[in-house]
C-alpha cells in the first residue's frame, strides 16, 4: 500500500468513527466491514483459539462503538487506536485465570485457522514495520524474541523464560532494555 492510499484509507476510517460517535449504525457496519478481518487476525494471534478471539473481537467493537467519540483524530491513525483496543481486550482475556486454566484442554490442531507467521505477508510489510524490525534487529536474537513473543502472543516474562529456558529476571531485563533501545532507535 503506498502512503497516499494509506492516508486516504486512514481518513476514511476517521470519518466512519466520527459518524459512529453520532450513533450512525451504518457507519459502524462499514467500519466493521473494512477492519474486522485485520482485528480478528490480531486477536487470533494472541489468543490462538477462535472462540476466544471471537469474544475479544466482539467486546473490542462494542468498545469502539461506545468510545468512538474518544478517538482523537489529531493523535494518529484510527487503525492504531482500534488495533490497540482489540489487543488490550485480547490480553485481558488471556490473563483471566479461568481462561488460562483451560490451557491444557486446548488442542492446537483443532483450531485450523490459528495465525502463524506468514512469509507471503512478511514480504509486503509496510515501511513503518520495516523500520521497527530494523530497530529490533539491533538487539540480540534472544532479546528480540522476548519482545516479539510478548507482543504477538502476549506471553508474560515467566512464560517467555520457560520457553527460552532462561531466568525470569534475565527476560525482564532484556525486555526492559530492549524496548528502551528500540525507542531510542525509532525516535531518532
Amino acid at each position, binding site marked *: 500500500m503506498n502512503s497516499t492510499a494509506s492516508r486516504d484509507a486512514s481518513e476514511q476510517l476517521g470519518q466512519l468513527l466520527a459518524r459512529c460517535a453520532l450513533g450512525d*449504525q451504518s457507519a459502524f457496519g462499514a467500519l466493521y466491514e473494512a477492519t474486522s478481518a485485520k482485528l480478528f*487476525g490480531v486477536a487470533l494471534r494472541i489468543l490462538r483459539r477462535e472462540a476466544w478471539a*471471537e469474544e475479544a473481537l466482539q467486546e473490542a467493537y462494542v468498545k469502539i462503538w461506545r468510545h468512538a467519540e474518544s478517538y482523537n483524530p489529531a*493523535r494518529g491513525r484510527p487503525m492504531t*487506536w482500534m488495533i*490497540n483496543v482489540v*489487543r488490550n481486550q485480547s490480553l485481558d482475556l488471556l490473563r483471566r485465570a479461568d481462561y488460562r486454566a483451560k490451557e491444557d484442554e486446548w488442542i492446537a490442531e483443532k483450531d485450523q485457522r490459528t495465525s502463524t507467521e506468514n512469509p507471503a505477508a512478511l514480504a509486503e*510489510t509496510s515501511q513503518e514495520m520495516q523500520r521497527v524490525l530494523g530497530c529490533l534487529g539491533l538487539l540480540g536474537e534472544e532479546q528480540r524474541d522476548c519482545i516479539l513473543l510478548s*507482543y504477538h502472543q502476549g506471553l508474560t516474562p*515467566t512464560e517467555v523464560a520457560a520457553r527460552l529456558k532462561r531466568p525470569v529476571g534475565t527476560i525482564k531485563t532484556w525486555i526492559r532494555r530492549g524496548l528502551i533501545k528500540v525507542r531510542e532507535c525509532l525516535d531518532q
Partner: protein
Amino acid sequence: MRYDDPQLQELLASAYVAGAMQGPARRRFEALLRTRPALRRRVEAWEDRLTPLVDATPEVAPPARVWRALQRRIAPASATVPARPAGFWNTLAFWRPFGAVAACLAVLVTGFAVYQTLRPSAGPQVAEVAPPQTNPSYVAVLEDESNQPVLVVTAFKGPWRLVVEPLRDLAPYQGKVFQVWAVERGTGTSRPLLQVSSGEVLRQPLGEAGWDAIKTSESLAVTLEDAGPVPASPGGPVLFSGLCLNLRGPTEI
C-alpha cells in the same frame, strides 16, 4: 509520588503496550491510566511505536455470528431483542437507561443473588450465639468509570457485618490498599469502612460506628491509599463507586 517518576512511567507504559505485564499488574496499571493523562500519553506514544509490528499479521475474516451479535448489542435499547441469553451484568447494563426505578429493581435482584450466593458460607465465618440473619440489609454495586461492576458490598445485621465480593482481582501495587468509604447522605463526608487488597471475598464484623456509617450513607466509594494506618479522609481519586441501597425500604432507617 512514585508513579510520577518519568522513568518508572516509561518502563510501565512500554511493558504494558508490549504485552509483557502479568494480569494483576495490567489491571492495576489500567486503573492508574484512568487518572493520569501523562501516563496515558506515554502509552499512546508506545502504541504508535510498536503497532506497525502487526502489519504482517494475516487478516482472517471473522464468522458472521460476530457481526450478528454486535448488531444486537449496539441497537438502541428499545429495539433490542436479545436472541441469546444475556449475561447477568449485561442485563444490569440493559436496565440502566430506564432510570432509577429500574436500577433499584436491578440492585434488589443483585442483593438477592448475593444473598443466595453467600448464604451457605456467611454463617460459620462470624462468631455469634444466635443464628445470624441472612437477609442483606444494604447492598452497593461499585462500578468503575466505564460502568463495569467491580465490587459488591453487602451489609447484614444480627450481628452487624459486611461482605465484600470483588468481581475482579483487586491486587494493588505493593504498599497500597483499596480503601472502601461510606459517603454520608447530605454532607458527603467519607468514613472509612474497610480495606481490600485481593480478589478474595471478605467477611468482616461491623461495630456500631461502621453500621451507622452504612445506614447514613448515600453511596460507597473506593480510593487507592497507602497501606498502614487507615486514613481519616480519602487521599486519592475515587476509582469505583455505587449507590448504597437499603433493601428493606426507607421506613427502617
